[in-house]
C-alpha cells in the first residue's frame, strides 16, 4: 500500500471485537468483551485503573494475544494489520540516543523517509527541533514527537494509551486539540484509553466504560467540534459519565453526588 504523506489519507479501519477474553493465569482481565467501531470513528475508553482498558488496547496493538474470542481490524485478523496500527504509549518512549528526526523515522524504510519525517514533525509544530536530542525537550514536546512518529506511518488505526496522563493541564488541552486536528485531517480510526472523563468527552465520538472486563456503557457524544470544556452540554455529559463510573466504585452512594452532576 502507498503510504506517501501527500497521498490522500487511507480510510480508517473498522474494528470488531466479539467475545474477547484475556486471562493472565487465573485472573480474568477481559471477560468476553464485544465492541464495534466504525471506520474513522474516535472512541474513548474510560474506566477505573485495573479494569482492563489498557489490556484491551495492548490486544488491539498486537502486544498481547487474546485467550479466546475474535478481534477483527478492517475485516482481517489483527496480526495481518500490524502495519496499519500504531500506538502512543503513556510515556513518550523516545530513543534517547537518536535525534528527534531519527526517532520519527524509526522503522521507516522508504527512500523519502527523511522528508516524511520532517512533514510529520511540522504537523506537530516541532519542525525546528528536528536535530535536538530528546533529553532537551519538555514532556509535552516529547509526546508530540511520539505523535509524529506514529503519524509518519500513516496509521489507519491509532491507539492512544493515556498519552497525556503525565502532562500539566495546559499542555494537555493543547495536545488534545492537536490530536483532534490531525484526526480530523487524516481520518484514521482512533481508540483513546484514559481515566480522565473530561478528556474522553472532549475528543471522542463515543465513550465506552469498561468495568470488570466488560463494556457496560456506550455513550455517544453528539457535541459539535471543536468542543469547549466549559459549555453546559459538555459539563452535563461529563458529569453523567463520571457519576456512572463512580457508582461502581462506591456502591454505598445511592444517587450520584449532587456536586458531580451539577
Amino acid at each position: 500500500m502507498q503510504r506517501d504523506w501527500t497521498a490522500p489519507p487511507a480510510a480508517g479501519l473498522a474494528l470488531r471485537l466479539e467475545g474477547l477474553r484475556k486471562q493472565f493465569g487465573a485472573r480474568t482481565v477481559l471477560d468476553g468483551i464485544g465492541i464495534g467501531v466504525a471506520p474513522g470513528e474516535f472512541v474513548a475508553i474510560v474506566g477505573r485503573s485495573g479494569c482492563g482498558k489498557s489490556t484491551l488496547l495492548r490486544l488491539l496493538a498486537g502486544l498481547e494475544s487474546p485467550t479466546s474470542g475474535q478481534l477483527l481490524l478492517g475485516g482481517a485478523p489483527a496480526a495481518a494489520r500490524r502495519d496499519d496500527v500504531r500506538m502512543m504509549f503513556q510515556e513518550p518512549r523516545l530513543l534517547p540516543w537518536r535525534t528527534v528526526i531519527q526517532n520519527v523515522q524509526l522503522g521507516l524504510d522508504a527512500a523519502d523517509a527523511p522528508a516524511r519525517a520532517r512533514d510529520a514533525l511540522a504537523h506537530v509544530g516541532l519542525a525546528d527541533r528536528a536535530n535536538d536530542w530528546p533529553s532537551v525537550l519538555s514532556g509535552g514536546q516529547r509526546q508530540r514527537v511520539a505523535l509524529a512518529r506514529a503519524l509518519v506511518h500513516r496509521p489507519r488505526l491509532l491507539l492512544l494509551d493515556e498519552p497525556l496522563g503525565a502532562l500539566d493541564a495546559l499542555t494537555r488541552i493543547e495536545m488534545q486539540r492537536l490530536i483532534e486536528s490531525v484526526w480530523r485531517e487524516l481520518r484514521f480510526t482512533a481508540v483513546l484509553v484514559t481515566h480522565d472523563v473530561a478528556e474522553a468527552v472532549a475528543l471522542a465520538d463515543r465513550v465506552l466504560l469498561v468495568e470488570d472486563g466488560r463494556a457496560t456503557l456506550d455513550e455517544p457524544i453528539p457535541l459539535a467540534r471543536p468542543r469547549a470544556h466549559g459549555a453546559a452540554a459538555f459539563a452535563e455529559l461529563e458529569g453523567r459519565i463520571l457519576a456512572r463510573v463512580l457508582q461502581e466504585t462506591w456502591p454505598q452512594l445511592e444517587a450520584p453526588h449532587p456536586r458531580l452532576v451539577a
Partner: protein
Amino acid sequence: MRAPSLTWRAIAPWIVPLAILLAWEASSRSGWLSVRILPEPLAVATAFWSLLASGSLLHDVAISTGRALGGLAIGGGLGLVLGLLTGTFRSAETLLDTTLQMIRNVPALALIPLVILWFGIDEAAKLFLVAIGVFFPIYLNTYHGIRAVDAGLIEMARSYGLQGWPLYREVILPGALPSILVGLRFSLGLMWVLLIVAETISAQSGIGYMTMNAREFLQTDVVLVGVLLYALLGKLADLVARGLERRFLRWNPAYLGIPA
C-alpha cells in the same frame, strides 16, 4: 559567593603537586633525603631526557603499549562477544554464565605460577595475564548493559516493526553502550596494573624490564622514570576512555554541552 575565575580553576589543581615537588627538591639538595631512597626531581628529569635521547625509552614504551593493547584486544574482544551472547540469548546465559562467574572469582594474579608453567616467561604469558584481567569488566558490563535496556523501548520498537538486527542496532546496542564503556574504563585501569606485574616478573624489554634492570644497579632515578611513565600511560588510557564516552554518549544529558 563569587564564582572562582577561570585562571584560578586552571592553576589551583597544580599547586599541591608543585609544592610537593619543591619540598622534595629542597630536601634532596640539603642531603636530608638519601639518593638511594629518592633521587632529586632534577635527576629524574635528566634520566628521562637521556633515556629519551638514546631511543631506548621510546622502544620500551612501544613494547609495553603493544603488550597492553594486544591483551586488551584479545580479552576485551572476547568479553564483548561473550557478554553480547549471554545478554541476548537465554540459552547462552544458562550454558556459560555460571562458569564465567566462577572463573571471575579467581584473581588473575593468582594464576601467575600456572601461567609461567604454561607459557614460560614469553610474550604469551604477558598477553594472557592482561587478557584474562580485562576480560571480566567488559564481559560483566556488556552482559548487564544488554539486560538493563529499557523493556518499554524494546516493546515500542517491536510494535513499530523493528526486529532482528535493526532492533539490535537501533535499540539494544545503544542502550547497552553506556555500561559497556564503563567496563572498558575499568579494563583500561586493570590493563596497566596487570602489565606492570607481568613485566616485573620477567621481561627482556618494556618499561617493567627497564625499572627492574635499574633496580639492580641502584638507579633510583630510572626506576622513578618508569613509575612516572606508568602514571602517564594510565592517565592517557583514562583520557581515551572519557573521549569515547563523550563521543558515543553525547545524547546523554550528563555529557550535553561538554565539548568533545
